[in-house]
């Protein structure tokens, strides 16, 4: 047992992992220039394996896992439990907490945004990096039945036939980024239905900023036993939705940002942007909102450095867009269970380092007068 702990807690293991981590961080940061922050992060840091060309090497997660085990084993070393080393002990304990918090955040946190025009309300968050295929049954006047298919399942050739839907969907091709343009006459085909008749989706490379991607899908509907069978296409941000009428039922199909519903509404009353007088440098952004729970509104202001925290969700003023007649405020929304870890661990680590410094520094700066000759 002692041998195992000694091996696991060897400081050389730490040195190796931290050197590897530095290499990862350095390459990952440089890579951001070409591939954008999000994809570089996915490739190098938020990944178990980082591929350098064809060579698989440990990614950020494995590296930090090893670091964690190394540090955890270190705490079991009996030689550490001395008053003289109390500072070191505390620092390592804090660092462990920081890594635990990082792990929880990496695995369980949720990020998205909420786009609100003045006067409108919403009860869902959109994931700006993911899309979903929504089938909305609009037959009933009082309510809609919604079935969503996440983009992970929209791989080419997959046939999806959700329960309660009188047709099946065969994904012909899913694109993570497209540019819709008008279809040429020569390219026409009888199988095309709806938008696909006039529009062709041209695939593009992913944008550097993942949220700038416009995803698109080309798919075949079959099983309706009617004229509606055929090839359709959808893309993100399409202005006219695709509708289908099958027998007495009517459906709306759309490709939209993956949604996550909240147990409350947020209504934007007013968005304000203040500039430093006489310049174009923004001084502050703020959104005046109503937080509506069970139809009872409560007025709030969300602004830079002053987010709204409610039921585990945090709403931040993130961005805005202004058109001639309306202002749109974009709130970033985060749910993070590991939120408090950095706060606590940083306190602990700083305390530990401070204690260690106070013990060590007098020794290291002992005044020894040696004259320069």
């Amino acid at each position, binding site marked *: 047992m002692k041998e195992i702990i000694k091996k696991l807690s060897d400081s050389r293991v730490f040195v190796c992992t931290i050197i590897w981590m530095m290499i990862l961080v350095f390459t990952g940061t440089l890579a*951001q220039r070409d591939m954008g*922050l999000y994809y570089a992060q996915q490739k190098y840091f938020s990944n178990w394996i980082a591929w350098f060309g064809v060579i698989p090497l440990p990614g950020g997660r494995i590296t930090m896992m090893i670091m964690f085990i190394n540090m955890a084993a270190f705490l079991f070393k009996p030689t550490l439990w001395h008053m003289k080393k109390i500072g070191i002990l505390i620092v390592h304990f804090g660092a462990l907490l920081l890594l635990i918090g990082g792990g929880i955040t990496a695995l369980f*946190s949720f990020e998205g945004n909420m786009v609100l025009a003045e006067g409108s309300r919403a009860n869902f968050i959109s994931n700006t990096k993911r899309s979903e295929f929504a089938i909305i049954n609009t037959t009933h006047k009082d309510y809609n039945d919604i079935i969503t298919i996440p983009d992970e399942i929209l791989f080419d050739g997959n046939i999806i036939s959700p329960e309660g839907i009188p047709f099946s969907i065969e994904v012909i091709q899913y694109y993570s980024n497209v540019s819709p343009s008008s279809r040429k006459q020569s390219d026409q085909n009888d199988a095309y239905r709806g938008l696909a008749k006039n529009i062709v989706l041209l695939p593009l490379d992913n944008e550097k900023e993942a949220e700038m991607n416009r995803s698109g899908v080309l798919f075949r509907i079959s099983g309706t036993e009617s004229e509606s069978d055929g090839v359709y296409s959808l893309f993100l941000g399409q202005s006219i939705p695709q509708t289908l009428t099958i027998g007495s039922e009517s459906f709306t199909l759309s490709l939209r940002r993956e949604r996550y519903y909240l147990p409350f509404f947020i209504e934007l009353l007013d968005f304000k942007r203040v500039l*430093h*007088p006489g310049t174009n440098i923004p001084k502050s952004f703020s959104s005046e909102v109503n937080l509506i729970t069970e139809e009872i509104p409560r007025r709030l202001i969300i602004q830079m450095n002053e987010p709204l925290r409610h039921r585990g969700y945090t709403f931040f003023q993130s961005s805005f867009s202004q058109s001639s007649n309306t202002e749109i405020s974009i709130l970033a929304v985060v749910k993070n269970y590991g939120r408090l870890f950095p706060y606590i661990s940083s306190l602990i680590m700083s305390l530990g380092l401070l204690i*260690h410094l106070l013990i060590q520094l007098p020794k*290291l700066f002992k005044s020894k007068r040696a004259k320069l000759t």
Partner: protein
Amino acid sequence: MKKILFTLLICCTGFVLSAQDFSYKDIPVQDGGRIKPLDTFARNQLLSVYGKRSLKSENLPAIEWLLDLLVDPNTGFNQKIFNIRNPEVVQSLRLKWDNDHTYSYQEVLQGLEGQEELLHQIEEKADEDLTIVEGQLQDLVLNFQKFANMWWYLKIIPPASLNSNDPWLSLLEVNNEQSLTENQRTLFLTFTEYLNKRSKNDALGTENSMANYNYQLNQNYSNVVDIKRLKFETWYNQANIFYLSLSFYILAFLFLAFSWITTPEILRKLSHGSLTLGLLLHVAGLCFRMYIMERPPVSTLYESIIFVSFIAVLCAVILEFIRKDGLGIFIGAISGSIFHYIGFRYSIDGDTLGMLVAVLDSNFWLATHVTTITIGYGASLMAGFMGHIYLAMAILQPNNTKRLKDIYNNTFGITLMALFFALFGTILGGIWADQSWGRFWGWDPKENGAMLICMWHLMMIHLRLSGLVKAPGFALGMVLNSIIVALAWFGVNLLNIGLHSYGFDSGIAINLGLFILFELGFGFGTYFWIKFMKNKNTNELTQIQ
């Protein structure tokens, strides 16, 4: 302690200033999002066209240049103030390339005539497609337009609403006097009266009109302008405090150099005093800026340089206080001077007292995160400096083991402190990010840079702990650490991505590259030399045996 010093400084200078009369230099102007004295406005205008804060050819301070231009535009239009450094640009303007390569408004105006198509073509191009000449031509046109429209930017009439967030009126906007309130009109007329008297060289008249101006500001606009602060800023502009602190650092170095030659102790003490005096002036400069802008010491790249410089010299003064052998002075004087020099280079880029974008406009986080991380940079660079000294000493005096061990211990101590500030600052930054953007860590280049510094320190400390690295190796590690700091500090801006990208400059890339080459060369060169000498010595020993 800092607070006491701060108030003391402000009180002293405030006392001196209150005795001084309100002058034309203190006339409040709204520019770049804040109210500043006319003196600052003039300096920034001249800086952007001419590249300097006073007109060297005529020995004219910026403020006099601006007012002369207002009084007598015809003379001003023939002053040579456009600084064109590229003969090709001069040729394309059909001008003659001469030795001082400065040209007047009239000359540039004639040169630009008939070139609309070329300029339009340049304007259409994306920035990265421009050749050097085209880029410079574009800059020149921008400067020219700025100069030609200067009176639009000279906003000296406070708004009728008396709300400090409302835009002021420029000289050209008040032409239609009917729309002005009574107070605005009187203020405007007083200003024109001043210009009138000035053109007639009527000393008494100008003095009177300025007294009148001051009276009206006090009477009607005391809640939008703070005259004391304006006077203070004008004074700060003229004081050139950082030039003063630099001269004391250089003086300290000279004293130290002489102390190596002759009577050491008294000269070393003088040198230490000079360094401390420079440091006090340095602190004063930082405090003055804080007072003028009402914000924490570090919020722009320029300020981070000045602040790192302060931290470095502070460490050095303390080190000298402990060691008393001149090493601290040596480090402090050199690093202080170098950083001052870099700072001056940066201040040429424009207004060093600019406003901040929304997310930075938070005094609490600027005060905590930015200040701590900058202290971390400063301390890391100090550790790097000590690393240089260790390696150099190990070559120059390899047998002075006690002294070498001393330096090694000091280096390690500073490294621990640097780690503390860098780590704490990085985590504080994460907490700020959590507060404003909702995530603690986003792998943004600047965040990664700060983390690299922390990791490098951690690596070195653990390498030393596990015995893999001895004193020379540790010193080498600290030398290389300077590269990491430089990359995190300046290099990140070259990537031009992420939330922290500000202050891009192509000149940085070259300087950064040179710095890295030098550090690599010095670090590894000295390190292997030491290794080589050691091996040789042991070999000789074995041969003797």
